[in-house]
Structures are given as structure tokens and as C-alpha cells.
């Protein structure tokens, strides 16, 4: 009888997404909380696009680099811990955008584990195998489907409340969504707006930090140069055409990045050869090259 009473409790527990539980204590637990692999079953193409995107490797930098390594090294930055064992989530201000789920759902032990992995991967004393294992651990931390389609999906929380557990948010509502943990998709009014991307692809200095730091300025550029100049396109209309979740550029793809940039940027070159006269009898042979670069981008290039 006692075991029968437990059944409903177990069933309810199984039906809840992992994000409903306490904070993650390890990298594996945090990765599992935000695991989006079940999305692949029905959204295979979108999932493949995401797998090749920088969102799938937010801590890996470009071409396998580990961009957070300086933060793990004692004395390298103002944020770096003196003792790796005493690292806290606050030692990684980059989490704000590169791993936002860590701020709300990770214990400091995740930061300790990440610091150790980063130091191992950067160590000259460790074997290649140890480094590869450490790197693979860092790579588990991703901006998954759940981060954008739940955590970041609502901006008007005083009016709408926090994103609901077990609900995904998209540009359209799907009342019956065939996922075991996320059975409903509700419409997010901001999902197709630039402000959605602007949550991370930023405004400039982070003045809310006790040690101000600056990452992306891209949304600031969009607002203050593109929109103010009459631009009307959204981030998504260029970077997510037909719902492409690669959200190019993918800087690990040299050819694709060059193609994207050459489409967005035009270069016009005009030349002139003549003999310039500054004073009588003293001609100087001169070549003049006039260049004109224009872009179709809605933001400065480069930015992020």
C-alpha cells in the first residue's frame, strides 16, 4: 500500500522538467537541467543548425579556444579567484550572457568545477587526454533551446510573471506540444523582435557590476545607429532567415563566414594615375585609390 501511494508522486516528479528542481551542483547536473536533445526528434534540421552555432559552444570561443580561461587564472583578471576551490558564480561575469542559466540555477560548486576544467585545459603539465576531458566538460555548458525558449522568452515579468515551468515560448502558440517535459508552447510577443537578441548582444558597459566590464555593443549600435537612421529590419530578419538557428556567422566555418561577409559588405574601388604639380617643374607621379565600403548590416561591423 505504501508503495502504491508513492506512484502518483513519482509520476508527477517525472513529468516536471528538470529546471523545476533545486540548483545544479555539478556541470553535468546543469547540462542535464537544460538538455534540449529531445527537441531533435521533431526539430531535426533546426537542432542541427543550432549544434553548429556559437550558441552551442558559448564558452568555447572561436575554433576551439576557451574564452573564459583568463577568468580562472589567479591574478589574470579582476574577477579571477585567488583559490580555485573558492570560485563562485560571481567570478564569471560572462555567465550573464554566455551561460545565463548558471546565474539562477547553479551552485558555486559548478563554478569551482568549471575553473578546474579551464585550468586543466590550459595547463602545460597535463596530458593531452586530461586536457581533452576538461575541454569536453566545458563544452557541455551550452545555450540550449530552453535558455531562449523559456528563460529568456519574457521581458515583461511584472505583467506576465516568470517563464512558466514546463512551458516553451515561441513566435506561435502550440497548445499540444509533443514533448514529455514541455507539453505546451505559448506565444512570446518578443520572440521575433531585436530586443529579444539584445538581452545578450548588448548595449555596452555593464554598469550593474561592481567591476564594470564591456562585451558586445551590438544592440546599442542597432538602436542608436541603425534604427535612428531609419532602419526597420530586425536581427532575426537577417540572421534567422527561414528560421535558421545557425544564426550565422559561424566563425568556425571559414568559407561560410567569408560568403556571409561578402554579401553584407560591398567594396567599391576607383583609381586615378596622374602627375601632381606642387611647384613649377617638379611633377610627382601619383596613384590615388578611392575606396568606399558599405554594409547592409543593422549594426556596426565588427561587433558581437
Amino acid at each position, binding site marked *: 500500500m505504501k508503495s502504491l501511494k508513492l506512484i502518483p508522486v513519482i509520476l508527477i516528479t517525472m513529468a516536471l522538467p528538470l529546471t523545476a528542481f533545486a540548483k545544479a551542483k555539478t556541470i553535468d547536473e546543469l547540462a542535464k537541467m537544460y538538455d534540449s536533445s529531445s527537441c531533435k526528434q521533431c526539430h531535426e534540421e533546426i537542432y542541427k543548425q543550432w549544434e553548429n552555432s556559437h550558441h552551442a559552444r558559448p564558452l568555447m*570561443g*572561436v*575554433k576551439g*579556444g576557451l574564452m573564459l580561461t*583568463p*577568468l580562472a587564472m589567479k591574478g589574470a*583578471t*579582476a*574577477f579571477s579567484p585567488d583559490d580555485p576551490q573558492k570560485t563562485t558564480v560571481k567570478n564569471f*561575469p*560572462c555567465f550573464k550572457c554566455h551561460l545565463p542559466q548558471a546565474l539562477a540555477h547553479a551552485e558555486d560548486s559548478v563554478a569551482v568545477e568549471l575553473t578546474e576544467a579551464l585550468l586543466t585545459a590550459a595547463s602545460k603539465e597535463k596530458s593531452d587526454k586530461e586536457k581533452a576531458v576538461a575541454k569536453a566538460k566545458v563544452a557541455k555548458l551550452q545555450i540550449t533551446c530552453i535558455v531562449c525558449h523559456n528563460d529568456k522568452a519574457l521581458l515583461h515579468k511584472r505583467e506576465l510573471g516568470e517563464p512558466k515551468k514546463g512551458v516553451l515560448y515561441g513566435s506561435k502558440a502550440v497548445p499540444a506540444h509533443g514533448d514529455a517535459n514541455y507539453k505546451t508552447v505559448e506565444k512570446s510577443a518578443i520572440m521575433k523582435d531585436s530586443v529579444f537578441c539584445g538581452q545578450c548582444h548588448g548595449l*555596452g*558597459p555593464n554598469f550593474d557590476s561592481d567591476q*564594470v*566590464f*564591456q*562585451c558586445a*555593443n551590438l544592440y546599442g*549600435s*542597432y538602436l542608436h*545607429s*541603425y534604427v535612428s*537612421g*531609419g*532602419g526597420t529590419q530586425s536581427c532575426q530578419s537577417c540572421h534567422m532567415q527561414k528560421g535558421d538557428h545557425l544564426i550565422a556567422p559561424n*566563425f568556425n566555418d*571559414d568559407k561560410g*563566414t*567569408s560568403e556571409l*561577409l*561578402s554579401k553584407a*559588405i*560591398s*567594396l567599391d*574601388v576607383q*583609381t*586615378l*594615375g*596622374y*602627375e601632381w604639380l606642387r611647384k613649377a617643374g617638379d611633377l*610627382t*607621379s*601619383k*596613384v*590615388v*585609390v*578611392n*575606396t*568606399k*565600403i*558599405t*554594409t547592409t*548590416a*543593422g*549594426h*556596426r*561591423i*565588427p*561587433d558581437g
Partner: protein
Amino acid sequence: MVVTAKSADGKFEQKAEKFYHPQATNCRDTKMKYGAQWKVANIRDTSLQPLQAKKETIEFDLPKDLRAVDVTVELFYENVNPANKYPVHTVKKTVTLDK
């Protein structure tokens, strides 16, 4: 962007470079920084701006006996370091001083 003027025999070569990017310091000294953890604010921005053309005029003075050069304009995107380069456009023109 690298603009090169080169004679056919290779004896004359001049180069001009232009760098287009936001430039930030930590606002405590005057050294430019890379990496969000060190940057605090942009102090100069030479990047390509939306809805604006970036125009340059580059001049090369040639030796008196040289009447033509090959001009190459290479526009590329550097990411993280100069070795990680993505070609964007290359334009080549021969410029002569003779009619």
C-alpha cells in the same frame, strides 16, 4: 583593409592599412584591451557603421620612371588575432599614368 601598389617587376611596393573596429580601454590607463573582462568602454570607433559608407583616399607617390602599378585592395575580417582571417573582397586594378 590592405591597399597595395606594386610595379610589374616587383621593385616598387607600397602598402597602406586601415583598421575598422571599436577600440576600448579599461579607462584606468590608455592601453587598448581585448576581452570583455578587461574592457570598460570604447574610446574610439572606426568600425563600419550601419547605413553609412566608409570612404578612404589613399595616395601612392611613384618613382619618376615608373608609369604603371598594380593596385590590390584586400578587405578581410580578423577574428581574435590577425592570423584568423576571413577574406571578404579583393579588387585588383592596373593604374597607368600614360594616356
